């Protein structure tokens, strides 16, 4: 009964649609989602020389990671904490959707938006003078895999997030760790990246995007790290997730 049937699929889609509606009705979120990628692309493309030999791949990698941390990790933590506070999660658990589908439907719009934003910003970077990415399929994988990893990390972070407002604080540590790790990683050429650099959660996303754009280097270690962190965060979230408020 926990499997995939027509109602689970249509129910998950209906939930995703109504979450998208809610995102859209929250003007601030909608505006940020639409304006952030072009603004960042503009800002970073002006400084494409400052990443040494990283080239455009480094710019895009950092940009995609930052975007995912904002638009998926922080946004998902905020959204789930908010829905939990409003008791929406508790109520949804009385529906016939399996638990994973409730969370999946709730987070799907954020993942979808992130993919659209990534495509947008890639297009803008190209418009600002970057060459086309060498391996676009890897770029898509970096965005999708990174978004899933951010979702898993967000679900785990909600455990220590009592309210939507608190998400601004509770998402900070991972936010900075991921960015610091990514900057550390892209500060060296792809073939000099150490396992330790890649092991910092989040840096593998930037590195995979850089490899996708520049074309050089082995993507497998980065892919593996994204999978590992997604699995670890997902498994912990599964054990620790709370459906109701109350400490």
């Amino acid at each position, binding site marked *: 009964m926990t499997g995939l049937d027509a109602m689970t699929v249509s129910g998950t889609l209906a939930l995703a649609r109504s979450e998208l509606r809610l995102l859209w009705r929250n003007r601030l979120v909608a505006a940020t989602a639409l304006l952030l990628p072009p603004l960042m692309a503009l800002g970073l493309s002006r400084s494409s020389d400052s990443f040494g030999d990283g080239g455009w791949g480094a710019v895009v990698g950092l940009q995609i990671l930052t975007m995912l941390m904002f638009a998926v990790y922080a946004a998902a933590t905020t959204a789930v904490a908010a829905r939990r506070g*409003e008791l929406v999660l508790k109520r949804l658990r009385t529906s016939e959707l399996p638990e994973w589908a409730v969370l999946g439907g709730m987070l799907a719009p954020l993942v979808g938006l992130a993919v659209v934003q990534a495509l947008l910003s890639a297009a803008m970077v190209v418009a600002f003078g970057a060459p086309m990415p060498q391996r676009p399929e890897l770029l898509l994988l970096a965005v999708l895999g990174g978004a899933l990893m951010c979702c898993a990390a967000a679900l785990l972070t909600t455990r220590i997030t009592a309210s939507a407002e608190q998400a601004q604080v509770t998402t900070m540590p991972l936010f900075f760790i991921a960015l610091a790790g990514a900057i550390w990683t892209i500060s060296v050429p792809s073939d000099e990246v150490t396992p330790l650099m890649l092991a910092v959660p989040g840096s593998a996303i930037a590195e995979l995007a850089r490899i996708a754009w520049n074309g050089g280097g082995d993507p497998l270690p980065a892919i593996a790290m994204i999978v590992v962190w997604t699995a670890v965060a997902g498994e912990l979230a599964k054990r620790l997730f709370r459906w109701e408020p109350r400490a």
Partner: protein
Amino acid sequence: MTELAIEVHDLRVAYGDHVAVDGADLTVARGELVALLGTNGAGKTTMLETIEGHRRADAGSVRVLGLDPGRERLRLLGRVGVMLQESGFSGELTTWETADLWRSLRRRGGDADAVLERLELAHRRDVPVKQLSGGERRRLDLAIAILGEPEVLFLDEPTTGLDPQSRRRTWEVVGGLVENGTAVLLTTHYLEEAEALASRIAILDRGRIARRGTMAELVAGIAATIVFQLPAGAPALPPLTAQVTTGHGDDVVAETTEPQQDLRTLLDWADAHRLRLARLRVRDGSLEDVFERVAHEQEVAA
């Protein structure tokens, strides 16, 4: 024998050291409404949410439609409607969007418009939920709980804070479902709600069922009350079987299991002394009396 929709046996639920439900039994048959009463903190919501499958039972057994709500939650959800104590809707969605979302979250979702119509919310279909009045939101809550005509319905304080009109509408809808065979377990603070709707009543006190039975069974043995005011300078009362105390103001309160006999004695006595008993009234034992007695036993025990 009627088929049981809910069977709870020796249920225990604890939060750490605090035992919220401590060995409670309960049954609800198909086509029956059972009201679960109790003071705040008596364990009503915990018991209800455990039967719904939201909380794990620490001991005892719970069967809903023959299934274990803890382990077979998903199999059960399609046949069960739940109205939590607090709604849990997104305020930015409209009434209709909310109902339509919930319709697609159920296998036998039914018709969102029809159910809004039934709860007199059709004219509010395009209003965001956050702009609904408390009563309207609670009716939306019920509308969603009864989408797809569930076999079992859980209602946690369905009419708390409702205006009389909303409450009456809620009662009509719930009564209609019971007539069609739905088993309903409801918690409430309103004794008149239990009296009006329930075929059986259970009073929960400190995690245990302190009283249970039909209305008649519960008030049997509860004294009737004769209340009146004596004019100044009246002679001593005649001997009554009643226990006589003073109530509010100048009220004389006589609690009796023989109201007819005591009333005759009292009125004969008043006639003989040419007295007029002001504000004379007689009231049968009520659920409120049962409730007060349970609360009193609690104080004595504490």
